[in-house]
């Protein structure tokens, strides 16, 4: 299966490239774009970007695998990322992760069979003052309780 950017993404990439003195610097933004366009960074996406940016696929792949935010496998429609670091743990994050794990029937790192949710335990999200915290796709949800999480997840279409 081959992939390709939309016209909008292509022109965004051109804008991005113009901001750097070096074409290599566009790799991270291009990977973000690819993830937005294709849902995840597939092998095809890597080959496509390599071609587009003029680097060997291995170079793009080496970057993509270094950073946790680039999903090399498909993730659910909702990527539920719960912080397990110290400030969140002190306020019960471990129980919340267990709760969500039971609720969705998957362990951290797994996706529900219907492809709706992926659950991940992540490191500090930089929002420790409103711990416990989780990120669902682009959005932060803060000062969580089991009830808040239930209400939120049940509401997602």
């Amino acid at each position, binding site marked *: 299966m081959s992939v390709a950017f939309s016209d909008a993404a292509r022109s965004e990439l051109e804008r991005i490239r113009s*901001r*750097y*003195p*070096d074409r*290599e*610097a*566009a*790799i*991270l*933004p291009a*990977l*973000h774009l690819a993830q937005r366009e294709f849902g995840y960074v597939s092998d095809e996406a890597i080959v496509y970007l390599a071609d587009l940016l003029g680097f060997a696929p291995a170079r793009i792949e*080496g*970057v993509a695998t*270094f*950073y*946790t*935010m*680039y999903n090399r496998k498909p993730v659910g429609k909702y990527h539920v990322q719960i912080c*397990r*670091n*110290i*400030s969140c*743990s*002190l*306020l*019960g*994050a*471990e*129980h919340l992760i267990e709760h969500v794990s039971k609720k969705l029937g998957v362990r951290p790192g797994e996706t529900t069979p219907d492809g709706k949710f992926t659950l991940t335990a992540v*490191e*500090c*999200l*930089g*929002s*420790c*003052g*409103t*711990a416990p915290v989780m*990120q669902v796709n*682009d*959005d*932060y949800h803060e000062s969580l309780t089991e009830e808040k999480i239930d209400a939120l997840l049940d509401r997602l279409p």
Partner: protein
Amino acid sequence: METVLTTHFANEQYRHADTYLQFGGYEALRKALAGPRERIVDEVKKANLRGRGGAGFPAGVKWGFLPKDLSRPRVLVINADEGEPGTFKDRQIMGKAPHLLLEGIAIASYAMSIHLSYIYIRGEFIREARIVEEAVAEAYARGFFGKNILGSGFDLEVSVHRGAGAYICGEETSLINSLEGKRGWPRIKPPFPASVGAFGLPTIVNNVETIADVPWIVTHGGEKFAALGVEKNGGTRLIGVSGPVNRPGVYELPAGVLLREIIYTHAGGLKDGRQLKAVIPGGSSTPVLRPDEIDVTYDIESMAKIGTMAGSGGVIVIPEGTCMVRALHVLMNFYAHESCGQCTPCREGTGWLSKIVGRIENGQGREGDLELVLDVCDNMMGRTICPLADAAVMPAQSFLWKFRDEFEYHIKVQKCPFGNKF
């Protein structure tokens, strides 16, 4: 109390240029552009502005490390990676007052004859990156960025660069590699970024808060800023308090505030009448303190005197009833996860620390494990390319030194007396 950064945080409109301008925004830039560059550097030096990213290096001195030769362009990179657990202040500046940062960038760039600047924002801060991008567009539209800024003849291009999830990218040379489109591997120093940094050009990396302080310094003068703090540590600090306190959050306080006051007065003390067991005072890497050690002022020198650091301003409050072995295990898992793997002592050492502390917590600790932990620490400290290894060692050693009986008890009874969960 005088505030430098948070004065208008409650005003939701303050993140927009129009509102920022109504409250005197970009006047400091106008003032700066009207005078010589050296004057700004002098004021920043007089201000005793210490880097707010963790190491506390004097900003004015760092700026002076740039080569005198202006023939090669130079770069200003803003470190908005904010990854140190317990730290959540730069997010506030970006979300609530992005123009403070942008005005600071324009002034600092002018002062250092820099025409190219990047704001490196951690990947997860999608909302903040959007707000900053909008603010950057506003700054361009109003002539604060771009060509011939406010008719001064000074040019500056500024853009946002998003990270993609990696704590190590907060380390400045890793951040530079990441900006260049590479894996975030820290670089061996020297050369220091001020001579060879981003794209091979002389580069200054400063934290968001450090640069956001600059407009105030230009407006009010370095001496006034210095006077807000203590002798060698000028100004206020954004201090984040997290853990089970009544009012967790970010507080802007003079650098000389007492740690006890931060916890008990500003953050309202512990929730539900719980007692204090320990404090990690300046982000997860800083050595832990016992309750009898918190009558200390929160400035860099005073904290160093008692063997810890104000670091990145993240106060993590640990209540009585918390298992310190478990708390350390959470931290060691983090450093093991985030080691970039370039240096053997760090790659292996962080893995070992998480494994040994984990087995102690799970009731499988062995005799000699504590000596082993300290031995691993000795083999890591100061032996690596970047300070991430040290950042893991400091909590490990201090937890063991100050709460040793708890570790010993785990090994002796072969289980966690606190029931394994927070």
